[in-house]
C-alpha cells in the first residue's frame, strides 16, 4: 500500500520532472548556442558565388566572393561554411577525390586540402596573376589558368607549381580534362588550347570563328574524349564531336530581345545532358551532347542575376549558382530556387 502510494507520487511527479528538465535545457540553450541549432548550415549563401563542383551526387563545394567556401553533403540542399582564412575572392574549385582538392582566386591565390576541406593550406604560386580556373587531375596533378596567359601546373600535390604560361596576353577562363592526358583550355579572343600529352605540349585549336570577331570563351566542358562544348561571349555555343579538331556552332533557341547578345559563362556536360548558364539569369540545356540547346524559362526576377557556376551532381540534375547567393537546382527542367531572390543591399 505504502509502496503503491510512493509509486503514485513518483508517477505524479514525472510531468513536473520533465518540465524542469525541459526548462533546464532551454535555459542552457539560451546561455550557450544549442548544439542542435548551432551548426552554420544554410540553404543559401550570403555572397556572390562563382563556381560549384560536385565530386559525386551528394558531396560538393562552392566558392565565391570574400574568400567564401561552402561544402554540401546532401546534393546541395544544405551548405556549411568552411574556414579558408582569406578575404580574397575565390574563383574556382576542383577535387580529384572527396579528400583532395584545390581552390584558386584573385591575385593567383591557391589553397589546397587533403581532408575534404576541413583544413585548407595556402600554396606558393610562381605567378601572382588572377587564376580563374583550376582542374584537379589526381592527388598529385593539377592545372590552373587565368589572367595574362597564366597557366601553372603541379605534379607533386602542389608543393611546387610550375609556370607554363602562354606566350600571348590571353585570359584563360576554363580548363577541362578527360583523363590525365587529354585536356582543353578556353579563353579570350576565341583561344582554345588542347593537349594530348598531359600538358607537356599545348596546341591552338581553330574554332571556326571569323578572324577579328573571335568571342571570348568562358566555359568548356567535355562529356567524353570526343564530345565537348564551349560557351562564351554573346551567346556563343560551339561544339565538337572530334576532340576539338573541328568546332561548329550549336543550334540555339533564344528567347527575348537580348538573348542573342547575352553571354554564357559556364557549361557542364554529363553524358548527353548538359547545362549552360550565364548573363541575365540565362539557363539553357541540351539532351544531345550540345547539338541543340533550349532555354529554360525561370522566374523573371532571376534575370537580375548572373549565373557563373554549374555542375551536374546526378543524371539530369544540375546545381547552379551566381550573383548574391542565388542558387538553383534544375532537375529535368524543373527549377527549384534554393535561396530567396537577392535584394539590393548595396551598390
Amino acid at each position, binding site marked *: 500500500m505504502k509502496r503503491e502510494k510512493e509509486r503514485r507520487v513518483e508517477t505524479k511527479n514525472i510531468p513536473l520532472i520533465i518540465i524542469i528538465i525541459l526548462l533546464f535545457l532551454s535555459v542552457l540553450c539560451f546561455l550557450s548556442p544549442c548544439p542542435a541549432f548551432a551548426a552554420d548550415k544554410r540553404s543559401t549563401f550570403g555572397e556572390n558565388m562563382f563556381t560549384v563542383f560536385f565530386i559525386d551526387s551528394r558531396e560538393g563545394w562552392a566558392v565565391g566572393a570574400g574568400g567564401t567556401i561552402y561544402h554540401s553533403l546532401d546534393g546541395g540542399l544544405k551548405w556549411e561554411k568552411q574556414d579558408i582564412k582569406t578575404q580574397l575572392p575565390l574563383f574556382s574549385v576542383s577535387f580529384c577525390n572527396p579528400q583532395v582538392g584545390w581552390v584558386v582566386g584573385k591575385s593567383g591565390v591557391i589553397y589546397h586540402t587533403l581532408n575534404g576541406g576541413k583544413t585548407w593550406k595556402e600554396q606558393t604560386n610562381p605567378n601572382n596573376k588572377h587564376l580563374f580556373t583550376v582542374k584537379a587531375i589526381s592527388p598529385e596533378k593539377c592545372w590552373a589558368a587565368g589572367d595574362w596567359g597564366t597557366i601553372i601546373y603541379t605534379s607533386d600535390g602542389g608543393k611546387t607549381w610550375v609556370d607554363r604560361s602562354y606566350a600571348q596576353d590571353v585570359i584563360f577562363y576554363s580548363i577541362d580534362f578527360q583523363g590525365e592526358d587529354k585536356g582543353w583550355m578556353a579563353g579570350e579572343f576565341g583561344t582554345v588550347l588542347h593537349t594530348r600529352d598531359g600538358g607537356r605540349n599545348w596546341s591552338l585549336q581553330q574554332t571556326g570563328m571569323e578572324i577579328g570577331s573571335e568571342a571570348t570563351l568562358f566555359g568548356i566542358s567535355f562529356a567524353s574524349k570526343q564530345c565537348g562544348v564551349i560557351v562564351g*561571349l554573346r551567346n556563343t555555343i560551339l561544339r565538337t564531336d572530334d576532340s576539338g579538331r573541328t568546332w561548329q556552332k550549336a543550334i540555339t533557341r533564344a528567347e527575348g530581345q537580348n538573348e542573342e547578345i547575352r553571354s554564357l559563362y559556364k557549361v557542364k556536360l554529363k553524358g548527353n545532358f548538359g547545362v549552360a548558364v550565364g548573363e541575365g539569369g540565362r539557363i539553357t540545356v541540351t539532351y544531345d551532347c550540345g547539338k541543340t540547346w533550349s532555354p529554360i524559362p525561370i522566374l523573371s526576377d532571376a534575370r537580375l542575376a548572373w549565373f557563373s557556376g554549374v555542375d551536374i551532381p546526378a543524371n539530369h540534375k544540375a546545381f547552379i549558382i551566381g550573383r548574391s547567393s542565388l542558387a538553383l537546382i534544375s532537375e529535368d527542367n524543373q527549377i527549384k530556387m534554393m535561396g530567396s531572390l537577392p535584394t*539590393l543591399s548595396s551598390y
Partner: protein
Amino acid sequence: MTSQGKKSIWLKLVEYHVGHPILMLALIGLGTAFFGYKCSSLRIHTDFFDLYPPKHEYIQLYKQYRSMFGTANVMTLVLETRNGDIYNVKTIKKIDRITKELMTVKGVDTTQLVSLTHPRVKNIAVGYGGVSVTPIIKVLPETPEGLRSLKERVYSNEGVRGMYVSNDDKAALISAGFWEEGLDLNNLFKEIQKIKSEADDATHTLYITGYPMLYAWIAHYVPQLYNVFIVTAVVMLIMLWWYFRSFMGIFIPMISAVVSAVWGLGFAATLGINVDPLVLVIPLLLSARALSHSVQSMERYHEEYAAIGEQKQAIINAYGYLYKPGILGLITDGLGVLTIAVASIPLMRNLAIYGSFWIISIYVSSIVMHPVLVSLLPPPRAKHLKKEQLAALDKETAREKLKEITARPGDMMYIKMGEFLITLTQGNRKWVVLSLVMLIIFGGGYVTKKYLKVGDVSAGKAILYHDHPYNEASDLANKKFIGSSQLIVVAEGKDKGAMKDIKSLLLLEDLKNYSLQEIPNAGGAVCITDMVKALNRMFHDGYPMWAMLPERPGYVGQILYALAAGSTGGEMDRYISPDNKNATTIIYFRDYNNKIITNAIANLKRYIEEHPLEQVKLHLAGGILGILAAVDEEVEWSYWINMALIFGFTFLFCMMAYRSLLGAMALFIPLLVSQISCDILMLVLGIDLNINSLPVASVGVGIGVDYGIYILSRLAEEYQFSNGDYRKARYLAITTTGKAIIFTATTLVVSIIFFVFASFKFQAEMAVMLSFLLVANMLGALMILPALVSIIGPERILSKYRV
C-alpha cells in the same frame, strides 16, 4: 518701507514711475511703436542653417563639401502603383513627368535630381561596340517589348533596384536635393502638392517625404498655429475676467503681455532674427511670465487698496513690495534664457537673445508701465477699510476683514485649492513631502540621466503624428527602398588623383562592407569602388569574376576616366571629385533615432581609428544623419551646461536676495524637482529632447523661479509681519500670492490645452509638457517650498529678507 524707516530704492522707483506718468507712457509708447513697426518685418520661417551648429566638425565638413557632394536636404518621392508593376507606359510617363516638374521647383539642386527616367541612372553594358555607359532610359518605352527591355535593364544593372525601383517592382523613387539658402517652404509645399495632385489617380499614389517636405509641412501649418494662439488669448481673457471681474483685471495683464510680446518680437526683427515655427511655443511661455507678474501685481494692488483705501499709496505699496521679487525673478529668468546661448546652434542662440530681451521688456511692461496705467484708471470698485477702521482693529481681525472684503466670486476656488495644499504639508506630512522630493531627485535623476536621450526618440516622428501623410511616406520609402536617410563619410585625399590608388578604393569598399555588417539599420551603402568594379567587369566582357578592382597599373585611372566620360558634368560628384582627390562612402538608413545615429557614429569613429591610410583621411559625417548627429551632440552637452547655469544663477541671485544659503536651497530644490519630473514625463511620453524641445524645458525652469520667488518673498513678509508665526505666514502667503500663482498656472494650462488640437504632434506634446511644468512648478512653490522652509527653520530663511 525698510525697517529703519528709510524709503527703499524700490519705493522711490515706483514713486518716480507713478509721479511721471506721461513721460513713462511716452517712452514706453515710443519703444512699443518702434518695435511694433519692426514686427511687420518679422519672419516666421525655418532657416535650415539656423538648425546646424556651425562650429561642429560635421557641419564644417558638410559646408566644405556640399557644393561637390550635394545638399543633405533631400526630398524623396515614391510613386506607388496599385495595379501590377511600374513597367507600363502610364507609370513610366508619370515618373518622367514628376522628374521634369521637379526640375522647375524653386530651390531644387538639379544635379541631385535622380529617378529611373533621369539620364543620371545608367545602363552599363557590353555589346558589339564594346563597353557603353548610357542612360537606362534613352527614350520612354511605348511598346510591350520596350517595357520588357527596360525591366531587364533595371534588373541587370547594379544600383537600380532597391534605389530607384522597389524590390517588388510596385514603386519608383524620385530623389531631389534642395539647397538650404532661400528655400521658400510655402511655395515648395504648393508646388509639391500640385505635382502630387497631378500624379495621384485611381491606380497611383505619390508619397513625399524627406527634410524639405517636413519643413514645408510645418510652414503650411503656421496659419493654423496663429488660430490656436487666438483661441488661447481669448480663453485667457475669459479666465482673467472670471477672476478679477473688472475691465482693469483684463486690460492691465493683457496689455502687459502684448507690450512685452511686441518688444520681444520687434527686437528679433530688428536684429534680423527669424522665428522658427517650431519654437513658437516659447513666446507663449514668455507671455506667461508677463501674465504672472501682472496678476501678482494686480492682486497685491487690490489687497493694498482694500487695506488703506487710498489709490496712489496702494499702488506705491503694492508695486514697491513686488519690485524686488519682480526684478529678482526677471534677472534670474533673463539670465536663464540667455544661457540657452551656450549651444552654438543659431536657432537656440537667436532664441536666447530675443527671449532674454523679451523678459527684460517685462520689466517695462509690468513693473514700470503697470503702476502708471493703474494710477490713471479709476480705483477698484471693491470695498476698502478706512484708516480709522483699520487702526481700531487688531492685526488678526484686520487680516480677516481684509480677506473678506477683497474676496471676489472667482477667488474661493483658488483659496480652497491653496488651503488644500497647505493641509498636505502641515505637521508630519512635510516629511512625506521631503521623502517624495528625495525620491524624485535621486531616483528620478538617476533614471532620467540614464535613459533620457537627446535626439529624435521615435524615428522621424517627433514633429508630426504617426499617421500623417509625411510619416506614411517615410515608412513606405524605408520599407520599399534601401533607405531615405543618408550618412556620408568623406574620404579626403592627400593629393590629386589619390582615389586612383587601389588602397584608397579598397578602404572605401571596406568601410562600406563594415557599415553594412556592423551598423544596425544600415539598409545599403554605395561608394565609387562599386562603380569601378562594375566597369572593370564590363571591360572584361562582362565576366562576373572581373567585378573586382583592377590590379594592372593605370587601369583605375582609365576606368574613372570612362565613368566621367559616360556622365554629364557633376553627375559623379556625389561619389568622387572630378580631380579624383576626394570620394565618399554613402550609407543609407531605413530608419533612425538617437541610438542608431550614436551607434553608427561610434562604429564609424572606431573604424576610422583602426584603419589609417597615409594618402587618404576619412572624415565624419555628412548627409542628413551627419547633420542630426552634430545637432544631437551639441544639444546634449549644451542641455546639461544650460541647466547647470540656470540653476547656478538662480541659486546665486536668490542667495543674494534672501541673504540666506538655506533660503536659496529652499527655492532651488522645488525647481530641481519640477525639472526632473518634467524629464520623467518626457521619458514616459516619449517626447524627444531635441533642438526644439530643449529651449522649452530650459525656459520652463523660469516659471518655477517666478513662482518660488513670489511665494518666498511673501512668506518672509508675512513672517516678519506676524512676528515669527510661520503657520500664519504660510496661510496668508498661500491664500494671497499663492492664490494668484494657482490662478496663473491653471489659466495657462486651460489656455494652452488647445494646442493639443494642432496638426503638429510636437505642439501638442509641448502643450502637455508646458501644462505639466506649470502645475509642477506651482506645486513646487506652494507645497515643497513651504514644507522645506518649515523643516529647515523659518527663522533661518525668512528673517533676513528686507521687506
